Every structure is written in C-alpha cells, then in structure tokens.
C-alpha cells in the first residue's frame, strides 16, 4: 500500500509536472481564494479519472498545495499518517477537488493571471484547509522537519523563475516556505488564530501576489485553524526558516526570510512582477516614502498640482522656497523702514488667541474682540490663561500682569484701536500684538537676537 502509494505519487509527480503550470497558477490564486484561471484540461481530466482510484493522488492533483505536501512527504517518514488522514478526508475533498478541477479547466496554463477571481466557494476551501490543518495538526510538525531536510536535498534550480511554475519541487518549496512564512507571520503577530474571513480578506486583497506569498497566506489561513499542537510546528518552522534563510539563497526563500525580518519593522508585500530580494524591497520602501513626501510638498506649494513629474515639481519647490526667502528679506527691509506704532493690549490678543485655539475658529476671535477691550474681563482672562497651563506662554502671564498696569492707563486709547482693524482677524491680532511688543514693561530678556 505504501509502495503503491509512493508509486502512484511518483506517477502523479510526472503528471504534476505537466500539471504544475496549472498548479502554480492555482497556487497563485489560491491565497486569494479566487477562481483558478489556469488548468490543463487534459491533466485534470486524467487526474479526475484517477480520483476514484487513488484518493491521495487525486487530492494531490487537485490541490497543488496538498500535492506539494505529498511530494515532500514521499521523502518523509510520516507519509503513512498523512495518507491515512488524507484518505479519510479524501471523500469530502474529492468534491472540492472536482470543483477545483472544473475551475482549472477554464484557464490557460503557466501564466500568472492577475485577474484571478474568487475561488468557487470559500467555504469549500476553508473546509479543505480545515482538513489539512487537522491532519497537519499533529503531523505537520513531524512533516516540517522532513520538509526542511527534503528541502536541502531538493535542487533549487528554479529559484530564479517566478512564474514558470514548471517545477513541482519549486511549488513544494514554496509551499513549505509558505507554511513557514505563515507560521512565522502568525508567531510574529502573536496570534495563532486568524479567522478564515480575515485571512481570506487579506488574501483576497492581493490576488496577484507571488506564489510563495499566496501560499504563505494559505498557510496562514490554515495555521489560523491550527491548534496548539502546531506551536512546535511553528517553532520548528521558525528555526527552519531562519536557518533556511541564511543557508539557502533562493529567491523565494530570501524573500520569505526577508518578509519575516521585515515584519519586525514594516509589513511589506512584494508586488507582482517585482524583484523580491532585500535590496529591492528596501528601495521600494524608500521610493514610496519619497513619493509620499513629494505629495505633501505638492500640497504645500501653490501651483504645484498642475505640474507633473518629479523634476518639474522639484523646480517649483525650489522656486517657491527661494521666493519665500526673498520675500522675508524684502519685508524685513520694509519693516526696518517702517516703525510700527504699538499700543499693546497683550491680554486681548492672548485671550483672543486662546479662544481661537480652543474654539478653533476665527469667528470666535472676531466675536470676542469687542468683549476683550474692557480691562475687567482681562483679569479673568489672564487668570484663565495662567490656569490653562499654556506651556509655551510661561512668560506671558508676567507680561500680562505688567501690561495690565500699563493698559489701565491706556485703556481709553486702546478702545479705539479695534474698531480700526481690518476685517482680517489675523491682522487685528497682529495689530494688538504689535502694540504689545512695544510695551515697555514687557519682559524681553528671553528672546535676544544675536547682533
């Protein structure tokens, strides 16, 4: 039986090779739990014929994920257990595999399709995933070690090929990495239970991801349902992946290793068709950051939205900064010439500003301007200010106290000021602050300009 199983599996291996294009596509769309766009009709049909005869093989055929598992398990000693459990669940799975086969029939082969839509039935997939998890619950731990051992033995010639999908071994490796990556992600995230819906949702969002990532998601979904027996699995997986990441310079492996290492800082996902080694990932992060900042700058600099292209925008920004600096110089010259009149009412301005900041509206400032003119409310406002604990205005209460004394005498003259203000609240307060600045009692020791 075992021999038969092994033989049949090996035959399936051959079939899997031809079918692997489909399986790889299936794996690619697997995480999205989308429809399988790829399938080799003849292969699936032939495999379908064998479903009844060899449940294990049928499952392996219909489910490349499982196929990967199975091909690896051929080299493992726990094959028997897996097979038994598979046979037990094969009856239920055949139905699903048939549906998968049906969807597989619809697609071409060997090409990653970004348009992979939904899986026939999420529940079916979840069911199967549950079955896989339950048989993998206790055995996957045992299987993982042989997998890693097998992995070292498996040649990694296809490491460079991402979507060729011609090698079932690559799929196996991907699957293993996926499981590892998934377990890593689960351990990293500290939660072993991801709901199917959550995992499905995350998977669905990125239907066009690379194979290993898809498998990682699948595995995460599966591992989400794993029980505590899989803690050891994940730990072993972690160890395996850490050793694997260092020792196995395969593209996907490195990516998974980097994925896990990146999960410490930023959760980055390699996008479809993009290189996935650590340098490109870091560069992509950097590029995204730079684009973000350019967008910020675009909002700041007026007239930048029309300009497209980084170079033009940078030119605009440079011109803008230059013009601002020139304006500062020009206005400072102007201010030097003009000697502003200053009869200040600090509290008025400050309480106005406080109201402004608390009420978050210039209307408050406008409304309160008249009320602030009178000195009596200013006392209250001053105390309010002091109690408000405005950290930046620690010296201002002193100023207020001093200015109040000065203002008591100047209250008459001040009342006329607000009425002459320009409607702009900013200018009004500026005027008040101007007056404040020239108050002789103002404590100006703290701010000195080196001259």
């Amino acid at each position: 039986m075992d021999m038969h199983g092994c033989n049949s599996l090996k035959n399936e291996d051959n079939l899997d090779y031809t079918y692997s294009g489909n399986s790889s596509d299936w794996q690619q769309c697997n995480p999205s739990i989308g429809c399988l766009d790829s399938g080799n009709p003849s292969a699936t049909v032939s495999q379908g014929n064998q479903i009844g005869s060899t449940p294990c093989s049928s499952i392996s055929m219909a489910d490349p994920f499982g196929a990967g598992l199975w091909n690896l398990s051929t080299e493992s000693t726990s094959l028997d257990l897996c097979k038994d459990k598979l046979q037990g669940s094969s009856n239920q799975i055949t139905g699903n595999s048939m549906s998968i086969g049906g969807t597989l029939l619809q697609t071409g082969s060997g090409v990653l399709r970004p348009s992979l839509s939904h899986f026939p039935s999420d529940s079916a997939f979840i069911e199967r995933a549950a079955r896989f998890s339950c048989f993998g619950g206790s055995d996957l731990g045992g299987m993982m070690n042989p997998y890693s051992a097998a992995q070292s033995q498996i040649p990694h010639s296809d490491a460079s090929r991402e979507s060729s999908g011609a090698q079932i071994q690559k799929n196996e490796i991907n699957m293993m990495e996926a499981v590892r990556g998934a377990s890593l992600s689960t351990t990293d995230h500290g939660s072993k239970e991801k709901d199917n819906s959550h995992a499905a949702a995350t998977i669905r969002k990125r239907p066009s991801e690379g194979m290993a990532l898809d498998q990682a998601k699948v595995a995460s979904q599966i591992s989400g349902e794993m029980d505590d027996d899989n803690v050891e699995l994940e730990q072993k997986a972690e160890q395996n992946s850490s050793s694997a990441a260092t020792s196995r310079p395969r593209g996907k492996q490195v990516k998974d290793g980097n994925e896990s290492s990146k999960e410490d800082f930023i959760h980055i996902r390699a996008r479809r068709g993009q290189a996935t080694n650590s340098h490109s990932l870091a560069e992509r992060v950097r590029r995204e950051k730079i684009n973000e900042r350019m967008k910020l700058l675009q909002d700041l600099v007026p007239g930048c939205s029309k300009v497209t292209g980084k170079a033009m925008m940078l030119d605009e920004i440079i011109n803008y900064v230059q013009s601002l600096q020139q304006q500062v110089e020009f206005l400072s010259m102007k201010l030097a010439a003009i000697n502003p009149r200053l009869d200040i009412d600090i509290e008025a301005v400050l309480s106005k500003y406080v109201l402004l900041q608390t009420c978050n509206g210039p209307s408050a400032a406008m409304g309160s301007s008249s009320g602030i003119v009178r000195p009596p409310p200013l006392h209250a406002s001053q105390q309010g200010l002091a109690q408000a604990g405005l950290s930046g205005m620690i010296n201002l209460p002193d100023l207020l106290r001093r200015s109040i004394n000065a203002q008591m005498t100047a209250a008459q003259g001040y009342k006329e000021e607000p009425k002459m203000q320009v409607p702009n609240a900013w200018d009004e307060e500026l005027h008040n602050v101007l007056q404040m600045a020239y108050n002789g009692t103002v404590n100006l020791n703290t701010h000195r300009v080196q001259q």
Partner: protein
Amino acid sequence: MDSKGSACSNPNPNPTFGPSKLMLAFRFLRALSIVHRTTPASSPTCRGRRIERAAYASMAYSAGTSRAWSRAVLRRLHHRARRRAVAPRRLSTTAGNRAEALRRLVPGGAGMDYCTLLEETADYTKCLSMQVELMQGIVDSASSNGR
C-alpha cells in the same frame, strides 16, 4: 533662555500644522521691538538685516528643536553671529542637480538623505510661508494704521 527652552518644546496644540501662528507672532514681534529699540535709525539696512535674522530666529524657535532645519538655523545664528545673511541666497542651478539646489536652500540640508530632505523642506516651507504671512500682516497693519 529657560523659558525659551521650554517654549521650544512646541506647545502647539495642533502639531500637524507646524508651529502655532501665535507663538510665531509673539516671538517675532518681540524681536522686532528689540531691534527697533536697539538699532539706530540711521542704519536701516543694518536694521533690516537684524530684522531678517529675527524673523529666522523666531521661526526656528517656534518650530522647536525637533526639526533639523530649525536646529541648523539656530546653530547658524549662534555661531555665525558676525555673518551677514541667515539664509544664504545662492542661485539654484536648475540645470544641475535639483536635490543639491534644495539642499542649499533649506538650512541643514547638506547632511541629509533625500527622504529627510523632502520632509524638512515641507516643514521649512510651511514655517517660512507663515513667517512671510506674519511679516506681511505687520507691514500691512503698520502701513494702514501708522500713517
């Protein structure tokens, strides 16, 4: 300088907006008053330069020390007290490297990576535009009321 130091810790209730306009106005006007009091009226250009330095100083103080450009401005102010201009106005070579030109414009931009440079440029632009607004407001109110 202790109160200034505490004020430098950014009391801004709305951190996304950068330094609060109030603090900027307060500081700048205070500096303006000092300059007007201390410099003789016979040297308007000298006073103008001092006012410009006061503008940058108040800007940098309002922005706080969390920003690289504000630190650079303050450093420049404290160490190059004898120098002429706070913001060296060198023409940018648009034909050349734009990042270099930006580095020359933004204080403290020389030692940054590009990403940080963009961030600092954004903040610097914000503060600079606020300062210009403030000064323009002062000039307007002074000219409208001071006749």
